[in-house]
């Protein structure tokens, strides 16, 4: 992902693209599946592209004023942004779809361990993050259910001006918050009844250990980084 931010030229994009698609293929995720997962982000992408195009044209008009040049500049930048977003999202979805939240949490905690020296509550912070991640789909589903229930009570939920709409969110938002709090309480109870005591108190069922696969992965990543650097400097 860091590489995605650093990438500038097309060859390096191509390299990263190939790499992420290969990894996705190796992880057993067909291309169709990853493209499908990107659909919700289409709007964001389009918005970014539009914004960029506007920004570019306003900058260039002060300068040369050459219209063709502006269009080309805008198009090039847009393509880059689309590619960059695509790569970012593929990488992110690859991570969340291949790694369970538990091992993600363990890994993150292990990585952030040095911060513990400075009394940063690493374990707690990571737990909070994982729970937040885990409950996004649950809350989405619940929100949809409540929305439908209120719509069945003849609520006008998506009409009128923005201010009215904001007020009309209340019938969905309040029950959703109530549900979220209830869930939080239940979760806390469940953790309590399983004697959860936070960091350092428990043992792990699955210990993460460094294996051959990890060495191979690290090597592949290093090779990728090296190839990337070469291409970037060469162009």
């Amino acid at each position, binding site marked *: 992902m860091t590489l995605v931010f650093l990438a500038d030229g097309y060859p390096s994009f191509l390299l990263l693209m190939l790499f992420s698609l290969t990894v996705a293929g190796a992880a057993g995720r067909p291309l169709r599946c990853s493209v499908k997962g990107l659909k919700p982000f289409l709007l964001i992408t389009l918005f970014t592209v539009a914004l960029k195009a506007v920004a570019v044209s306003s900058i260039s008009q002060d300068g040369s004023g050459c219209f063709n040049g502006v269009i080309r500049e805008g198009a090039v930048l847009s393509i880059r942004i689309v590619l960059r977003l695509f790569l970012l999202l593929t990488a992110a979805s690859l991570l969340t779809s291949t790694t369970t939240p538990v091992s993600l949490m363990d890994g993150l905690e292990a990585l952030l361990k040095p911060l513990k020296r400075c009394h940063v509550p690493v374990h707690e912070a990571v737990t909070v993050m994982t729970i937040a991640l885990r409950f996004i789909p649950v809350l989405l589903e*619940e929100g949809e*259910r*409540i929305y*439908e*229930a*209120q*719509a*069945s*009570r*003849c*609520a*006008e939920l998506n009409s009128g001006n923005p201010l009215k709409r904001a007020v009309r969110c*209340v*019938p969905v938002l*309040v*029950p959703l918050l*109530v*549900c979220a709090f209830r869930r939080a309480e239940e979760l806390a109870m469940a953790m309590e009844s399983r004697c959860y005591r936070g960091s350092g108190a428990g043992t792990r069922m699955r210990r993460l250990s460094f294996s051959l696969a990890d060495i191979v992965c690290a090597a592949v990543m290093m090779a990728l980084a090296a190839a990337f650097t070469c291409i970037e400097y060469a162009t």
Partner: protein
Amino acid sequence: MREITLRIEPGTFLGVAGRSGSGKTTLLRHLNGLLRPTSGKITFDGLPVDAYGARALRRRVGLVFQRPEDQLFEETVYKDIAFGLSGSGLGPEETADRVREALHAVGLGEEFLERSPFRLSGGEKRRVAIAGVLVMNPSVLVLDEPVAGLDPLGRRDILDHIGGLWRDRGVTVVMATHDMEEIARYAGKVVVLKGGSIAVEGTPRDVFRDVDALESAGFEPPRITRLMMRLKEALPEIDDGIGTIEEAAEEIKRVYRGKGCGWKGHDKGRAHGGIFSRQFDPSPDGPEDKDTVGIRLYDACISC
């Protein structure tokens, strides 16, 4: 959902049964236009549902979701029930009348009106939420497992109120449930779903008799019906399409009288000797394989 053809006559009390995932909720959500069928059509009062505006349809077809208490959000019970009327053009007095009426229809008193819905018990919350749908005076009331997770007395009371709406006001009721005994008690017609299609359909009597089809959909007849079926093996004149204990008691009394024996309310020995001893021994020191329903029926009979 596949190949569903269903006609719900006005004034029917329709029970929709089916195991989890059989499509009950999906079917119900089609009824007020929350979902549109991908193929086929749904008509209401002779017109396709698309011809109604979403709100106009939902005012006529009131849908009560599973766990409807999750939808409460206002500060007072009154405001919450009245929520469905906002924008309907009713004056404050008329609104107040409708809210009170809805509250009585679910068996709550007016002392609840100014309380916070979040401070009520689970059963009371559920009643308030049902009232929030009833306030629109729907001609069809669709309920998705309205009494799931409540205590037995609360279940019976809420269902009796719904039954009252059906009987007194002629509201068409469509109710999804897992409980065959509830269907036997209230419904005039049953649809049993299996894998998104209709497995069995008909009056509760007919459906309960079709044991094989019922079992293939994951249900069995109410326990009292099973008891009557076993009694029928010994007494061919007995009616085995019965679903409630009260009806069964009447039927047994009828058969018993027909046999020329008197029925004496508390004469356990005779009841025991008259009918039950041929099939069951409901006494506490009876044989091990006694059917608990036998005991319940026995109790029901002697309390009649």
